[in-house]
């Protein structure tokens, strides 16, 4: 008798526990987002978190002023009866194994319906593997290492351009420069040595080989270095015409300062986004980094445009302009939300199907991509990027010529005029 009542009590508990979240979750779709909110890359994680909060406002409330941006005009997801999106942010501190554990926790304990993340490519790499095992769609926000989408995964999607897209962009730019009579004899590649830097570095080496651009020296280094003079001296000896940095924030600033203090200025420096786009970079070194180039698929645009309005919302929240990294995360989040809405359900299988059928046109995007359309590996095949250059305290779009708002400075001047 006693045993039966115990069993009964246990059953009641089980029912109560299982039923409760399901009942509550009916009116919201829960998305778990993994980012580095503390640690070396915390600034980027925090900036992206603010961007997602703006995106949530845009999706969950009516913003008819934002043109063709999907889900902006309505409050919530219309195909799910106006369901709201709910986001759970977790902090993996830039540690791949923490990212893996947190992804498991988000799925099994927080019962999220989708996942997104994870800034560092190494963290996206491990977290997507968890999503694949549990059959939960994972939107890779902006990590660009190639190998994230080359594992035959069915549940991983990535709206952002990747390493090879960037590498090709740089080579097209060099070809353009050569045509314009600039000397591009050899380039140098300086990359931090985790998945991000290594894969982008590899992609650039491969594309440079294909485009017949010699690589004078390649310098891998650890992003937590406290001193980079030796690397700068190696560059100084190799004398490349362009140095491409694939760096995180502290190291990007440190390289810029060390190059200045060791009196080394190559004709051109290209920063591969990330550290060079971090909100801390420009205030720290704008006086010695004039003419540094960077890539960005984000441009604020003319006053009154959709992008400019989004930037205003972000600025009101954080006091800063939206940066490329956060903007690409925001775009990825919109693409995911659009797929959930088209699926008309938050069932993982249906959302996955909707994601594979995604076809966003340029006028539905906030970024300078040609569109969002995923191939069978989950990679957006219409992603591309602009090149920008630091003029004063702002980056200006300088290439391709057709979209440019500023004039390209070559060679870079370094110090402020």
């Amino acid at each position: 008798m006693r045993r039966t009542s115990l069993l009964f009590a246990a059953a009641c508990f089980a029912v109560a526990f299982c039923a409760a979240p399901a009942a509550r979750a009916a009116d919201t779709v829960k998305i778990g987002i993994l980012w580095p909110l503390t640690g070396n890359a915390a600034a980027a994680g925090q900036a992206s978190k603010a961007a997602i909060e703006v995106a949530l406002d845009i999706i969950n409330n009516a913003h008819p002023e934002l043109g063709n941006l999907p889900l902006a005009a309505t409050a919530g997801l219309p195909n799910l009866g106006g369901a709201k999106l709910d986001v759970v942010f977790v902090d993996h501190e830039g540690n791949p194994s923490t990212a893996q554990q947190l992804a498991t926790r988000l799925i099994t304990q927080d019962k999220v319906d989708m996942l997104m993340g994870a800034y560092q490519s190494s963290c996206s790499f491990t977290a997507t593997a968890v999503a694949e095992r549990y059959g939960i769609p994972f939107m890779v926000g902006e990590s660009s290492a190639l190998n994230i989408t080359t594992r035959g995964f069915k549940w991983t999607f990535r709206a952002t351009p990747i390493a090879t897209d960037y590498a090709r962009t740089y080579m097209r730019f060099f070809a353009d420069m050569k045509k314009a009579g600039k000397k591009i004899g050899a380039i140098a590649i300086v990359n931090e040595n985790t998945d991000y830097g290594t894969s982008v570095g590899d992609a650039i080496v491969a594309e440079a080989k294909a485009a017949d651009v010699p690589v004078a020296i390649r310098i891998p280094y650890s992003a937590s270095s406290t001193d980079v003079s030796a690397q700068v001296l190696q560059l100084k000896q190799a004398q490349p015409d362009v140095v491409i940095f694939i760096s995180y924030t502290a190291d990007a600033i440190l390289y810029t300062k060390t190059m200045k203090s060791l009196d080394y200025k190559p004709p051109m420096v290209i920063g591969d986004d990330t550290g060079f786009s971090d909100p801390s970079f420009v205030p720290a070194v704008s006086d010695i980094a004039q003419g540094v180039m960077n890539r960005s698929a984000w441009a604020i645009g003319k006053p009154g445009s959709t992008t400019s309005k989004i930037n205003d919302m972000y600025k009101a929240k954080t006091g800063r302009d939206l940066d490329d990294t956060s903007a690409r995360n925001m775009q990825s989040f919109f693409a995911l939300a659009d797929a959930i809405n088209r699926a008309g359900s938050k069932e993982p299988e249906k959302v996955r199907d909707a994601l594979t059928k995604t076809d966003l046109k340029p006028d539905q995007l906030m970024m300078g991509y040609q569109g969002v359309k995923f191939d069978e590996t989950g990679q957006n095949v219409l992603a591309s990027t602009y090149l920008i250059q630091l003029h004063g305290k702002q980056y200006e779009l300088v290439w391709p010529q057709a979209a440019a708002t500023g004039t390209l400075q070559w060679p870079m001047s370094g110090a402020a005029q």
Partner: protein
Amino acid sequence: MVALQVIVGGLLLGAIYALFSSGLTLIWGMMNFINFAHGEFVMLGMYVAFLVVVWAGGGPAAFGLAAAIALFALGVVVYLSLIRHVIRGPMLAQILSTFGLALLLRYTAFWIFSANFVSLPQNSLAGTLNLGGIFLPVAQLVGGAVAIVLTLSLHLLLTRTSVGSKLLAVSEDRAAAMLMGIRPDRMQMLAWGLSAGAAGIAGALMATAYPWSPSVGETFGLIAFVVVALGGFGSVLGSLYAGLIIGLIQAMSAFWLGAIYKDIVVYGLFVALLWLRPQGLMGKA
């Protein structure tokens, strides 16, 4: 010429390592106490310098001094409110207390200063000296010089003055020191103040050359432990030599072998040396 530049750069870096490590070795050697929050003291020194520059427009002398005083005070407060109580507890409590303190300081800094990297605005130490093709960043030069002077004075304080003798007496035999009329509490409070103050100055000097965020203490804390272990526990002079050696080896291996190998070389030699000489370069066996 390039070789000379590499060597000079390594020595300048090493001098800074020595400065922020000397405070750690003081506590370790004098009190047999491991302070895991030492890197965080350095980090706070950097932020004190930042605040002085941004709010008061102070120069290097002002922010160096301010960081030293502020951190000296913090060291005293930490001793009185935390260390004094846990020091009589089990070893584990001692270790965990400063570990907890490190996290508390780090995340308080996150809360107040946010996770963004900051760097000092243009200041009088920003330039570079060109000595016949060898470039000496003024910030690192001043930092290195001050580091060597401070480390040496700390060494003299411990070995040549009565305060130093009292500190040593307390570390050797607390009870006997008390019988001689020395107040161990006051001496240890002083040691904590000096240790944190040295970390504060080191932080202020490094702030002129490096960008940082609240998590920077992790990186510096680790280096400090290696320097102290290599130099010999409790030997301030040892940490000066060890700092210079590590800076030099790092710079040379990064230049000739590649940046990703420099830590392998440094820590490989470190392990080898401890194997042959476990007490460190200057430690007593």
